[in-house]
């Protein structure tokens, strides 16, 4: 049953850009995939490990700059760059985690906000590395042939498939985490950190590992962001607003679920981008609205709610 669902979903992902070739919808789907990765990244830390971060744009930005700088100054191709972006973001996450995880709950959240702001200011002022507020721009991507024919980077479709691969990896990582020892550790930590500690779990190590994994995915999404938009500047990729968007997609979709970030991204990004085509300003208005609705009426998120409804309809006992 689950396998059939998975196969159908994969088939939909593969044929989608050919069924709706309109550039707006392809762009929309790419954005949904990118935000799925970012939501999934946040969900690993904020959902499974229960550590609310308001600073995840730090990892997105670090990834975006890594890919961009490696390509511009060393000529390293973006597909290696995206993986390296994830690694750099994860490396940055380790010291941040060691510092910020001394704090708990809302204090941790505030400290991540401060760290992200400091990193944004560094990126803004370290002009020899980041080119400061002017930002970095690439005009062409290196030629690649796939199955014998060159890839046309002016089309959005190659980006769609690259985004799809990263999103599938992100969801697969989440699924693997949910069945792993680390997953069990961080769930225990999010339930009750003192008891987890008493049971002999190294809570600092477990939380830092979850943060590094989360940062890896956010960094890879940042690398993808840089290559897709081909332009980045500190205020675009390090903003508080981006961190907050990730939180909202994960929470509205459904925390601590594998599919939640995908559902959240489909729902919120479609609303936001459609709103943007009609109004110049304020496309995040529904993010805020649905965040409030979700916290008040369905803290388990859209996907969590759907699952509960289906389970009660089928008479399955929810364990």
């Amino acid at each position, binding site marked *: 049953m689950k396998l059939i669902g998975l196969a159908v979903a994969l088939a939909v992902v593969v044929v989608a850009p050919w069924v709706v070739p309109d550039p707006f919808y392809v762009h929309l789907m790419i954005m949904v995939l990118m935000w799925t990765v970012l939501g999934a990244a946040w969900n690993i830390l904020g959902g499974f490990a229960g550590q609310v971060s308001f600073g995840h744009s730090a990892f997105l930005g670090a990834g975006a700059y890594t890919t961009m700088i490696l390509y511009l100054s060393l000529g390293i191709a973006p597909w290696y760059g995206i993986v390296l972006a994830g690694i750099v973001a994860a490396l940055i996450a380790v010291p941040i985690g060691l510092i910020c995880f001394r*704090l708990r709950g*809302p204090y941790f959240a505030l400290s991540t906000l401060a760290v992200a702001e400091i990193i944004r200011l560094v990126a803004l002022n370290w002009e020899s590395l980041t080119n400061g507020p002017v930002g970095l721009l690439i005009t062409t991507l290196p030629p690649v042939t796939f199955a014998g024919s060159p890839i046309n980077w002016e089309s959005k479709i190659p980006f769609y498939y690259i985004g799809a691969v990263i999103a599938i990896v992100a969801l697969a990582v989440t699924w693997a985490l949910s069945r792993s020892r680390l997953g069990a550790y961080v769930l225990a930590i999010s339930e009750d950190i003192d008891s987890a500690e008493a049971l002999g779990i190294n809570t600092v190590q477990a939380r830092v590992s979850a943060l590094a994994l989360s940062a890896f995915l956010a960094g890879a999404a940042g690398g993808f962001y840089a290559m897709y938009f081909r332009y980045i500047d500190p205020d675009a990729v390090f903003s508080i607003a981006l961190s907050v968007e990730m939180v*909202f997609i994960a929470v509205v979709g459904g925390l601590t679920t594998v599919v939640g970030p995908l559902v959240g991204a489909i729902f919120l990004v479609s609303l936001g981008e459609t709103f943007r085509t009609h*109004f110049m300003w*304020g496309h995040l208005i529904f*993010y805020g609205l649905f*965040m409030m609705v*979700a*916290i008040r009426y369905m*803290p388990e998120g859209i996907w969590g709610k759907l699952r509960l409804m289906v389970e009660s309809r089928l008479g399955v006992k929810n364990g």
Partner: protein
Amino acid sequence: METLVQSIVSGLLTGSLYAMIGVGLTIVFGVMRIINMAHGDMVMLGMYGAFWAHTAWKMDPFLSIILWVPAGFLGGLLIFRFLLKKIVPGGELNTLLYTAGLSLFVANLALLIWTGDYRTIKLPYAMMPLRPLGIAVPIPLAIAFCLAILVTAALYWLLAHTDIGRAIRATSQEPEVAALMGISVDRVSMITFGLGTALACGAGVLLAPSLYLYPTVGEILVAKCFVIVVLGGLGSVPGAIAGGLILGLAESLGAVYVSVPYKDAIGFVIFLLVLLFRPAGLLGEGKS
């Protein structure tokens, strides 16, 4: 020497406004344990209130504080009664996420209505700064400073000498015991949230003539608020006042003696250090 005095003066002027915003945030945290992510957006609404009072009704922006402080109080009461009341029992992280939602909603509604364009208020009497003893004091900031001290002192008096003030302090210290003593914690919470919002709106009105106005200005302000209240210890009113002045001084001295581009980072670095090494705040009376 003159630069030093100059930067201390401008630091204190800005710091007084920071203190006013911080006090609003800290009393709300003290009573309800809400870290209000939307506090900066209330400041933004106050700024736009002053702007429109000036542009549409030809009212002096500083005078419009008599309109927007009561309006902020009323708005705060309504927000608490209809939005936050049901969320508070869910714990600090829930209210944090909920007010983050409220913040994004308010900021984007403002973007939709007023667009993201930068606006300024031009006052005829504010073209030239005052120059007592050779130190430049911008007139709008000087007026804002005096009014901020007045408002903060009035709030202090309210907390120290009135029944509702005593009830607020009691609830802040021990909600259960306060409830046992016959204080309606619900009512106190609502009034406290109203006061916090009123202070934010008032500070927004006072800041409007000195800053650029744009709908997402709250994002930066709220980050600064957290620095202020954590510096002084979350929940402590004198702490928030001290925190506001310290941040103002740190920014203006930092801009002169450290570096202009990193002036905004100084606050965040102090913030992290205080969180890590003195989580109860510099004055040590906050709750960690």
